């Protein structure tokens, strides 16, 4: 009977899910899916109700009432216990008294101050060194610049002296007439040739 | 099924009864609580000194699944530190099993009794508290019986539950046949497997159990007959053994062995222990004080031995050589004299039982000592070592 039902179910399942997985499942757990109707043999079966006598029912009622009341109070107690535990527990953190906390803070402050002092002294030394180094550098640069400018001035002076020396033979407006006269008086003929021995051959 | 169970229970009870019957008839038991005397600091010191500390024996190679060793390079300072740690470790390994009296099941075990719960189930329920971090002794185990009574579990059940939920390494959930069958135990004893039996006993039983007392008493008594005390020397069981002998006034065999092996200091300590336990008005503290001043404790001796291997051969003084050859120093000779006097006093007293034997042993030892002393002095003179230098 069950097997027949099973086949039926298989078909139904195949239609419904379109896969074979579902069918495999109730090879062991053969159970009726909810969407299938009640089996024919069980159609008119009326489930028997367990009879419960009146006194048993009242007794149970009384017991349950008792139980619930007791459990409620126990729960209340446990809830308070948990809260208490959470407040007083030091399981996951460190608890300190105010004095200890103050002392801890003071210790931290002291330590911080000590660190600061140490670092400050170190820094002062370092800054002084740096300043000195900078001064020395600047000094050096200044010296170098001075030297350089002096050198330049000397060069310029020399040039000027040379130029002045040169300027003596220049033709000025006053000596123009004389120069023309001398030029006219001494014409220069550049129209000549020189052979390998240095003999000059004047033309014209 | 239930029939089988019944049979099994019967057989268990039967073996227990036979063991108890056979053992209790001829073994000595502690008549009152030995704990205050055992935990006393002086007693502990005496017992530890008697146990001695032989590093080779304590750290012998064990056949356990992991017995790997580690090799390291170390500076001398590190090595020194390691030496000290070694001594501490050895002392830990020599921790004596506690001596306590037999514990009975508590009389007021019943917590509540609810008559309305009668027949709520066909078997009883055993509840074990497995809260993390509890010790085995403070863990609560309660039993709800079929008649509805809630009570604390018996010691037997407690042990079973502790072993089930928090197993102790090496302990069996059943009684090993070695302990349940007297003939097997007898065979072990005859093969002189004392240390094995006692080791297994400590693991299998709690010190307050009746079986622990019976079996250990049996081992100690057998040891008294076979006189193989050297097997237990420098193990954790030597202290309880000496304590057992001192308690039951049968130290003579051990004493004889100690004199034979030339452990006079230990012999004095043993006598002192028995005086202390039985409150015999003999002043032993003075002698002990003198001896302690003259001779090092076992820990110091072991440490010296460790350090000795660092010494280079040329560093060895000629006096050390002489001492090594004879095995005794001048202080040892002085200490021997004091202790021999004390021991002879004991032998002369009414507490010694095997006087003739002991006297003979003392006499031979004296002669031997005299010879050694003469040899020592002769050697010293020959090498030109001055007497005052030591």
């Amino acid at each position: 009977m069950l097997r027949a039902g099973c086949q039926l179910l298989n078909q139904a399942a195949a239609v419904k899910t379109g896969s074979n997985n579902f069918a495999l499942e109730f090879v062991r757990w053969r159970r009726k899916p909810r969407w299938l109707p009640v089996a024919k043999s069980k159609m008119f079966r009326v489930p028997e109700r367990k009879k419960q006598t009146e006194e048993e029912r009242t007794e149970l009622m009384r017991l349950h009432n008792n139980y619930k009341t007791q459990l409620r109070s126990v729960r209340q107690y446990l809830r308070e216990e948990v809260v208490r535990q959470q407040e007083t527990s030091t399981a996951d953190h460190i608890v300190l008294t105010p004095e200890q906390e103050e002392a801890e803070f003071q210790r931290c402050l002291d330590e911080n101050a000590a660190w600061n002092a140490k670092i400050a002294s170190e820094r002062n030394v370092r800054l002084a060194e740096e300043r000195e180094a900078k001064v020395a550098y600047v000094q050096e640069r200044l010296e170098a610049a001075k030297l350089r400018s002096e050198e330049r001035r000397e060069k310029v002076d020399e040039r000027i002296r040379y130029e002045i020396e040169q300027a003596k033979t220049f033709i000025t407006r006053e000596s123009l007439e004389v120069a023309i006269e001398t030029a006219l008086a001494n014409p220069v003929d550049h129209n000549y040739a020189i052979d390998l021995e240095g003999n000059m051959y004047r033309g014209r | 099924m239930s029939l089988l169970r019944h049979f099994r229970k019967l057989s268990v009870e039967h073996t227990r009864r036979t063991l108890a019957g056979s053992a209790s008839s001829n073994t000595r038991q502690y008549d009152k609580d030995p704990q205050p005397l055992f935990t006393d600091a002086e007693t502990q010191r005496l017992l530890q000194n008697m146990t001695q500390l032989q590093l080779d024996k304590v750290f012998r190679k064990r056949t356990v699944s992991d017995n790997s060793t580690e090799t390291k390079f170390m500076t001398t300072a590190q090595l020194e530190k390691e030496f000290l740690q070694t001594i501490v470790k050895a002392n830990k390994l020599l921790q004596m099993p506690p001596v306590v009296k037999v514990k009975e099941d508590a009389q007021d075990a019943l917590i509540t009794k609810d008559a309305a719960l009668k027949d709520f189930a066909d078997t009883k329920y055993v509840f074990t508290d497995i809260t993390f971090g509890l010790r085995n002794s403070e863990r609560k185990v309660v039993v709800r019986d079929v008649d509805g009574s809630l009570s604390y579990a018996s010691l037997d059940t407690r042990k079973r539950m502790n072993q089930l939920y928090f197993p102790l390494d090496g302990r069996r959930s059943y009684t090993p046949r070695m302990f349940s069958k007297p003939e097997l135990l007898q065979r072990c004893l005859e093969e002189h497997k004392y240390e094995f039996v006692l080791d297994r006993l400590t693991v299998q039983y709690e010190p307050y159990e009746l079986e622990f007392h019976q079996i250990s008493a049996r081992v100690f008594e057998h040891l008294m007959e076979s006189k193989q005390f050297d097997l237990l020397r420098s193990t954790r069981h030597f202290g309880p053994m000496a304590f057992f002998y001192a308690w039951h006034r049968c130290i003579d065999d051990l004493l004889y062995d100690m004199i034979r092996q030339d452990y006079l200091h230990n012999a004095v300590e043993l006598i002192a222990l028995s005086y202390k336990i039985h409150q015999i008005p003999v002043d032993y503290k003075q002698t002990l004080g003198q001896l302690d001043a003259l001779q090092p404790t076992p820990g110091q001796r072991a440490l010296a031995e460790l350090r000795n291997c660092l010494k280079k051969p040329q560093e060895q003084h000629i006096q050390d050589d002489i001492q090594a050859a004879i095995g005794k120093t001048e202080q040892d000779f002085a200490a021997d004299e004091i202790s021999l006097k004390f021991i002879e006093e004991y032998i002369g007293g009414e507490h010694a039982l095997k006087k003739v034997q002991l006297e003979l042993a003392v006499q031979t030892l004296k002669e031997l000592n005299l010879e050694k002393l003469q040899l020592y002095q002769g050697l010293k003179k020959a090498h030109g070592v001055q007497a005052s230098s030591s």
Partner: protein
Amino acid sequence: MLPLARAFYSSVARISRNNRVALHTASTLRCKEATVVDNEAPAENSEESGSDASPPDGKDRTKVIPVETSMRYLKSAAYRTTYGEEFVWTQYRRNHKGMYAPRKTRKTCVRQGKISTGNPCPICRDEYLVLDYRNTDLLKQFISPYSGQVLSYSKTGLCQKSHLRLKVAVEQARDCGLLTYDVPFREYDYSEYYGKQEEPIQLKS
């Protein structure tokens, strides 16, 4: 493998410690050709005992050998001539194809009361080696001196069945106290037994 051992043992257990058969058994044990031994067996038997009508089958393992005999055998001269000072498994080599032996040894050497293989394992090849918890001399040969555990079958070459029996026997022997082992160290917490906290005992070191 040992057709003569039994024929010989029926007599040697009683009297003769160093007769010719014992030596012969020892030599044949090492040679692997069981067939040769089979051929020789009846001849030897007829020579030695003469009274035995049918030659015993060397591969037969249906006869139960008592442990006491085995224990006596392990102490006998015949055992010493056979194995010398070595363990019973040291001379044994497994036969296998290729370079590497299969990871597991064979399941069993004895099928239907007969040795079913040409190279039975060290226990199965000598029927006077009986695995039993009382036979401590034999069991000790299979225990590692370093770790205290039962040696693996890859080392000893025991068949799986013998190995299982070996392990059971060792466990039983330990339970009975016939074999000693290093018991795990148990550290005591004194306060657990003495209630209050004792001051730690000072050790001068």
